[in-house]
């Protein structure tokens, strides 16, 4: 598990609008890579190109290459469904399936794809996933109650459990804590530190303290101006970005001198 992702000269379009330009970066396996930057600079857009969710928007497309270990994710015969099998995603707003119980939500990746497991294997998988997401103790007595009855923080951890139940290589998280209280945020940050033992994690966050706490590598995205495409200003070890960044724009942003 856990794979390296090489992004090279990636241009990302919404129809004719160039949203993100010329991104090149290496995402290391078994580590947390944080993406920071002002709102609207294309962090979510970039993240969604990594598991080919970007192309779900009509007429959206990319140019450039994204290579995971040795597989080009945008190669000619690549099925986006297979890409998403290996690269899971957690969204900004927790989105458990409202028609399913907690148990079924965790098992959704298998059940929706009609993969049948023995009952005991499925139970084990659900328990392991919920334990990895630090949610097991809170829900073990109500596994067959609806997932939408949980609190916001619990729902977000349920979504993480659902994403890791299919055992992806990479986990993408788009501002997973932005709608959560500090205690739930703490729980999810702890969780990320545990998960990086086995997964490659990429997290978009608005919270710079969070980036500093959980990530090994930090990338800073910025916009040249209104209507201009977003771009990756620099990416480096987190300690370096937060102490001695090489670009002035990065320093301005992390020291709060930026809008």
């Amino acid at each position, binding site marked *: 598990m856990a794979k390296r992702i090489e992004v090279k000269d990636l241009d990302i379009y919404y129809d004719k609008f160039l949203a993100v330009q010329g991104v090149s970066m290496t995402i290391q396996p078994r580590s947390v890579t944080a993406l920071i930057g002002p709102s609207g600079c294309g962090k979510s857009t970039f993240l969604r190109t990594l598991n080919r969710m970007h192309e779900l928007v009509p007429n959206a497309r990319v140019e450039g290459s994204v290579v995971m270990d040795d597989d080009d994710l945008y190669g000619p015969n690549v099925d986006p469904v297979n890409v998403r099998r290996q690269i*899971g995603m957690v969204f900004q707003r927790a989105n458990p*399936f409202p*028609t399913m119980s907690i148990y079924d939500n965790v098992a959704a990746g298998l*059940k929706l794809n009609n993969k049948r497991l023995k009952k005991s294997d499925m139970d084990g998988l659900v328990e392991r996933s919920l334990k990895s997401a630090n949610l097991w103790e809170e829900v073990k007595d109500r596994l067959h109650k609806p997932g*939408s009855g949980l609190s916001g923080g619990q729902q977000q951890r349920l*979504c993480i459990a659902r994403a890791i139940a299919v055992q992806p290589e990479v986990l993408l998280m788009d501002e997973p804590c932005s709608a959560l209280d500090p205690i739930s945020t703490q729980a999810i940050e702890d969780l990320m530190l545990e998960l990086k033992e086995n997964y490659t994690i990429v997290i978009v966050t608005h919270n710079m303290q969070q980036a500093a706490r959980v990530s090994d590598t930090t990338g800073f995205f910025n916009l040249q101006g209104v209507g201009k495409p977003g771009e990756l200003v620099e990416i480096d070890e987190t300690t370096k970005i937060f102490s001695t960044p090489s670009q002035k724009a990065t320093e301005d942003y992390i020291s709060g001198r930026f809008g």
Partner: protein
Amino acid sequence: MSTSLTTPEQDPDLNAPLGGVSLTAGQLPRGAAPATLVAAGLAGLLLWLLADWAIVPCALLAAAAYVVIVYTWSRAVEGPRKATDRFVTAAVSGAFLLALLPLVSVIVTVVSRGVVRFDAEFFSYSMVGVSGEGGGIYHAMMGTLIITGLAALISVPIGMLTAIYLVEYGRGKLAKAITFFVDVMTGIPSIVAGLFAYALFVMIFGPGVRMGFAGAVALSVLMIPTVVRSTEEMLKLVPNELREASYALAVPKWRTIVKVVLPTALAGIATGVTLAIARVIGETAPLLVTAGLTDGDNFDPFEGRMTTLSVFSYYEYQSPGLFAEAAYDRAWGAALVLMIIVMVLNLVARAISKLFAPKTR
């Protein structure tokens, strides 16, 4: 018109200290408005009973008296804002009662005239050999159920698949064209649908053809646009986030639709379908030209004439024969049964939406 100093409508003197404007205002005594209403009602009642006026002018007069009295009284005591409020409240309630009137009157008439024939024979016999009293609507009830059931069987899959195409796949010209034609179909008069189905079956089976299935086709023409519209609305309500969550779990699009989108929207779709059925079940004109009428049982929709409740009711009224009273009773009885079926369908729709709605605990 006297305005007391304490009404808030008076322009506050901007130079006065803030405490100068009082927060309290005059109020009608508790129960004043209901008491006025009762008094006006009683006055109307007296006019009707003693002065021997017709009931409608009495009621209108009582209502007008109530509005005038309460408005002027309230304006004097409470000020123009409250008075306007009372006036509008009275107007809105009056409009509601007026709208309710025909509904109540229909129910009362149909029930009182329909129950006359609610006996065992009515529900278990057809009209074979009946020329006077007696006879039943068993054949018509079965006809209605068979034809409407077939219509639902045709329209629900077509309508739902169309809606799924429009919401989940449709882009560009084709989707626009389909939306346009669905809109046009919504406005088709039901007799046109009947003539269309009749013409279609004449092309296949020759002139004079009558069969239940043709009636079902005619009803489908009316039902499909309703099903498309309601399903479309329900699918649009499913948050995109759920679709994305499913894609992110490597679930292909068609499985996402079948296993995530449809179950989430199921309650609304089922309600919409039930209401669409309720809408066409009482159609008469299209069935008159396609399915026709017969006195006996015919439960084969592909062969021969088939009676439905609405057509039966129409014929009993239109050509009652020598024993007119008995025929009228049967007509009202059939109408009442139809009304009960529609009501049951509405209740079923409610139950379904309760049953399938996503639960939170």
